[in-house]
């Protein structure tokens, strides 16, 4: 497709383009509000990425394959209201994926995101209990 030549360039870069520091690097986001229970603490980052992604051939600074195989996952239902799903999807799409991009990761799989969501939630039992109490108060 259209951008194939970028990939070809990655495999054999004919003459190494002069890497200039990016003038138009988007400024790192001050993490906006994310719904309780889906915050993204550093503990999910497997390794911290080295911050200067190469511009001419975007090579990820961390492993470019998913952390675990599809065979390793177990699908179980989670029950939640549509608005909670929406909030989670937004947090994942808008903040998490963006921060992964900043770290040079661009092929994250749903299973990796879901797995991380559960691990982060498991690390924050108090906040989960608070959120449940809060919801009951609002009833």
């Amino acid at each position, binding site marked *: 497709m*259209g*951008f194939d030549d*970028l990939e070809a360039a990655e495999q054999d870069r004919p003459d190494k383009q002069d890497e200039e520091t990016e*003038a138009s690097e*988007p*400024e790192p986001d001050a993490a906006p509000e994310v719904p309780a229970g889906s915050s993204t603490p550093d503990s999910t980052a497997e390794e911290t990425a080295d911050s200067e992604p190469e511009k001419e051939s975007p090579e990820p600074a961390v492993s470019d394959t998913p952390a675990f195989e599809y065979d390793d996952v177990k699908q179980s239902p989670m029950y939640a209201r549509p608005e909670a799903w929406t909030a989670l999807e937004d947090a994942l*799409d808008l903040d998490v994926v963006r921060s992964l991009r900043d770290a040079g990761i*661009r092929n994250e799989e749903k299973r990796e995101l879901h797995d991380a969501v559960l691990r982060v939630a498991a690390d924050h039992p108090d906040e989960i209990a608070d959120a449940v109490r809060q919801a009951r108060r609002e009833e």
Partner: protein
Amino acid sequence: MQTEPRAVSVGILKGGFAKTTTALNLARELAHRNERALVVDLDDNGHMTLNLGFEQRYNSTDEDGSNHAEAVLLEGEDPREHVVNVAEGLDLFPAHEDLESVQSALKEATMGTTRLKKDLVDPLLGEDYDYVVIDCPANRGKLNDNAMYATGNLIIPLRPENGYETGLSNTLDRLVQEAREYFELDILAVVPSDLRKRIDQSTRDRKLLREITTRDAIDHLVPNFAYLSEDDWEAIDDGSYDGDLPGVRYRAAIDDAHQEGVPLRDYDPECDQLAAYDELAQIVERGEVSR
């Protein structure tokens, strides 16, 4: 507020959505606010270039028959030799009637997707210009790919016209998604233009605004001049809304400026819709919509 030089594409995979008007007036406001902006006309229909009165650039070739876009993107000529001045602080890199052959040549060229970045945007951005705005063609192809790669930022213009839904979804699904498999591409804003109908009744204006202000992952991309919150909508529906009508609104001055071949600011500096283009310029400076 920390701002930094930035390049942005204005594009949607459909014609007739005020792309050229949006790109020109955005670039003009960036120039007005920052003194050094460049607008690049990559649309082979050349509307912007012709409209601003540069027919000769659009039609002429040098002695060996090549055009200026070819010279810069394929032969590595200095782009500065081909820019023309449009207004105070604003220059134009003109389109050419034969951009089509440039597109074909880019397909064959080594790293053809990177040329606009390497030969035009990178050398000029932060050096000669603080902001570069690219008016993209309405079809998919190497020129569009180059614009996405060179800027890494996209503004999607919309009009309440038949087919805006497909225009938007094609742009997101085909252009943006595909580009994102290879590099970072941020959508800075989704910008409705030419609004003129009531929104308390079932009009196309309302449908468009409803969709972009309530659709996940799009709503935060709508600038304040066009944004309506859920409370605003409720107020509109019970008749108590007293806020501004969302823009960019239709104004005769915007059309007339286009007829005259000048940016809106240079035709009618009093036009109330300049405030919308000013906010759009701020979005580009900051790199995002700020509510």
